[in-house]
């Protein structure tokens, strides 16, 4: 059951909202929790045991950490001044052991379920090449829904309790609801416990504003998903699968189409997620902030899949870069390489860890790892060569604050991101490299004018996609200026408001890629 399917938005979500609203406030959490587990079970059946295990273990590990914190506070308070440092250090070791246990447990499950096949295949290939007499079993595990997302939430909760920024939750149902909340289990956003647990538990009454705004956001997301993303699915699939048959210009079109498809699919799905949360009065964190207005790749990743980026920043980048070993490295490197290049060594190591994890998080294949490393190289080299670049621009009297320069930066960033997405989507690294090569060596845009592009694509459908992309672009410009289209429309007289809403709904009904020759397409990020 995915968010854009009628069973979800026309039956499941309204039924849940109705049951939720009809019950007294103190019982509403039961509706949300039951609905979340039903949603999970409907997709993953007996794999729900993974979620249950994660939830219960995180709960108990959190309580354990809380107990150690409490004991430490008491022990420190009771101790002499001279002993306090030693006591703190001792309890810190205990805390670290428990949190490491929790992280290893949950990441271990994720590693085995999602990556064991990949590692086994590659190790076996290595053993074969090196003539070593070993063969690892290659077993593909069925993946439970949202395992990459709820595992990250679980780890973030444990680390936050370890750090003392969050109190362990004694209330198992509240923690379970936070872990499994049905609108976000499939594709995120990756929520922090402190952001949404209390909101979920508060179970505010559904009011008119939340209902209408939530539905509007939901419809907006559905438009992006089924009018654009699902419409582009067929040509993208065909071009990436059979790139050998296509001219470089067609492959270029495929690359752009995939980036558009991915953005519309993911951001559209998240609009539906956030809209559903809004109906229940839960403000889920935003995951996109007009990413294609970014001036650098680094900035892009603060605007795209924001909750994943901040998770990596808070739980990998900072712990690695601020660790004792890295601090020593930075200190020594500063002496030899100066204040700009010195710290870059440690941040480079941390960045490499982040981007390796980012690539792997998306999937167990070499092109995902290469995708991560590609962005690492872009971001790291951007920072590394910044002084050189600045010097060149100064010498050439280029005003880096000017609008033309910003425009160039945006175009450059979009181009680099598109190449990354081609690597991401391709059927392996070899295919990605061949596709890139063809774009440069066999590029003939004349194929479109001559009708020789081979891919069966309806011109009318592409025009609808383009119109929708322009509408979304217009909306993004408004957002970039801090304006909200929903608020603007909400301030209009009723006939104007309703006209806008009806246009949106009928636009989806008329131009969506559903029924007939279209097969339902799962959200792309639900596969990660």
């Amino acid at each position, binding site marked *: 059951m995915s968010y854009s399917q009628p069973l979800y938005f026309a039956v499941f979500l309204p039924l849940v909202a109705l049951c939720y609203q009809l019950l007294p406030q103190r019982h509403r959490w039961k509706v949300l929790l039951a609905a979340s587990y039903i949603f999970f079970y409907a997709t993953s059946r007996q794999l729900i045991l993974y979620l249950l295990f994660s939830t219960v273990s995180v709960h108990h590990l959190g309580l354990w950490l809380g107990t150690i914190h409490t004991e430490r506070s008491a022990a420190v308070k009771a101790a002499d001044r001279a002993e306090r440092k030693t006591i703190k250090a001792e309890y810190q070791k205990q805390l670290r052991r428990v949190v490491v246990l929790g992280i290893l447990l949950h990441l271990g499950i994720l590693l085995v379920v999602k990556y064991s096949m990949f590692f086994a295949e590659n190790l076996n290939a290595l053993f074969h090449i090196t003539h070593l007499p070993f063969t690892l079993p290659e077993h593909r595990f069925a993946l439970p829904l949202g395992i990459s997302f709820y595992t990250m939430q679980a780890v973030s909760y444990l680390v936050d309790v370890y750090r003392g920024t969050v109190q362990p939750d004694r209330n198992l149902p509240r923690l379970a609801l936070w872990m499994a909340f049905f609108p976000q289990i499939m594709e995120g956003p990756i929520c922090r416990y402190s952001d949404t647990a209390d909101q979920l538990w508060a179970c505010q009454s559904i009011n*008119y504003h939340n209902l209408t705004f939530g539905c509007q956001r939901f419809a907006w997301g559905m438009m992006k998903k089924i009018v654009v993303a699902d419409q582009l699915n067929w040509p993208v699939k065909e071009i990436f699968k059979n790139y050998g048959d296509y001219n470089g210009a067609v492959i270029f079109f495929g690359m752009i189409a995939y980036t558009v498809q991915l953005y519309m699919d993911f951001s559209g799905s998240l609009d539906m997620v956030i809209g559903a949360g809004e109906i229940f009065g839960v403000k889920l964190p935003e995951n996109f902030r007009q990413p294609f207005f970014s001036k650098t790749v680094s900035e892009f990743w603060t605007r795209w899949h924001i909750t994943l980026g901040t998770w990596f920043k808070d739980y990998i980048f900072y712990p690695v870069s601020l660790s004792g070993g890295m601090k020593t490295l930075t200190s020594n490197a500063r002496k030899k390489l100066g204040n700009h290049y010195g710290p870059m060594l440690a941040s480079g190591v941390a960045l490499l860890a982040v981007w390796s994890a980012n690539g792997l998080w998306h999937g167990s294949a070499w092109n995902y790892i290469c995708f991560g490393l590609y962005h690492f190289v872009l971001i790291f080299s951007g920072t590394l060569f910044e002084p050189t670049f600045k010097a060149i621009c100064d010498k050439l009297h280029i005003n880096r604050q000017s609008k033309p320069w910003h425009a160039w930066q945006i175009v450059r960033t979009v181009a680099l991101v598109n190449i990354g997405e081609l690597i991401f989507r391709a059927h392996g690294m070899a295919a990605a490299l061949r596709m890139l090569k063809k774009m440069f060596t066999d590029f003939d845009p004349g194929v479109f004018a001559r009708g020789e592009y081979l891919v069966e694509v309806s011109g009318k459908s592409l025009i609808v996609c383009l119109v929708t992309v322009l509408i979304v672009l217009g909306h993004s410009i408004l957002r970039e200026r801090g304006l909200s289209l929903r608020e603007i429309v909400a301030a209009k007289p009723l006939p104007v408001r309703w006209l806008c809403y009806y246009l949106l*709904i009928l636009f989806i009904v008329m131009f969506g890629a559903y*029924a007939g020759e279209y097969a339902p397409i799962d959200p792309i990020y639900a596969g990660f």
Partner: protein
Amino acid sequence: MKKANLSSLIRVAAFLLVLALLLSGLSWLYRPRDNTKEGGMDYIMAHGYLGQSADGIDAFFVGSSEFYSGISPMLIWEESGITSYDYAIGAQRAYSADAMVEKLLRTHHPRLVVLDGYVALKRGDPDEAVFSMASRLFSILENHENWKRFDWEMLAAPVEYTHREINRGFRPDNRNTSITYAGFMREDDSRARFPLMNRLYLEHIRAVCQREDIPLLFIALPSPENWDYAHHNALQDYADKAGIELLDLNLMVDELDIDPETDFRDEGDHLNSDGAEKVSHYLAHYLAQQYGLQDHRGDPAYDDWAEDWAQYPE
């Protein structure tokens, strides 16, 4: 507070009512104008019956690819003069069978409706079932792609079904995959699962046909890939309770002389043209004897059948 809630409810209800009207309007505007692709119709072969007179088809075979692969209405015509039609689409499920029976009864008056035994027991997709229900209320959901096909002229055109399928919905396939099926209908007491959703839809079909005084018949075509005795038992139980005849041709493969080496096209899933010929010859006599369906050969009102038979590929 209560007044505010009531006012909100009224606004939501009014919004939804206007939306329903708009969807109904669009449904009417984009309804197919002809039973052709240019006319905005999908499943052209299945909807060929619309090009025939309301009383011109005695029996409808409402089913899946099993039916359109395994029953040739033109061979039935040739053998017995009975007129029939394969109103069948691939991967049909109980909810679409229900919709299709309702649809055909809006324009035609058959003397018999035959349902596909495979479809009766095949588990459907709840999401598709919801969509099917919504499409019956607002056909724009099914026909929305007509915006690509229709120009202003078409939007103003009346509905006129002009296309007639020579094969009457049958899709002959000469491919052959040799199989063995020794013992696939070995008698036992087990029962296949009969999805509750399917029962509900079959009950609705039964009620609709009863209202029109049209008898129902289940046919299970030979399909070793999909059928066994457990399926037979499950459907027979239901058929007995519902008072519907079940003709399970899987039990009659020897009598029909179905040859596993030559009569299936895909590992025992569907019959091929040879298998369909044998089944159709049998059904021609069965329908005449059991349901008293008339021989229309020589009747000028059925000249189109004679014309199309002349063009029917051998």
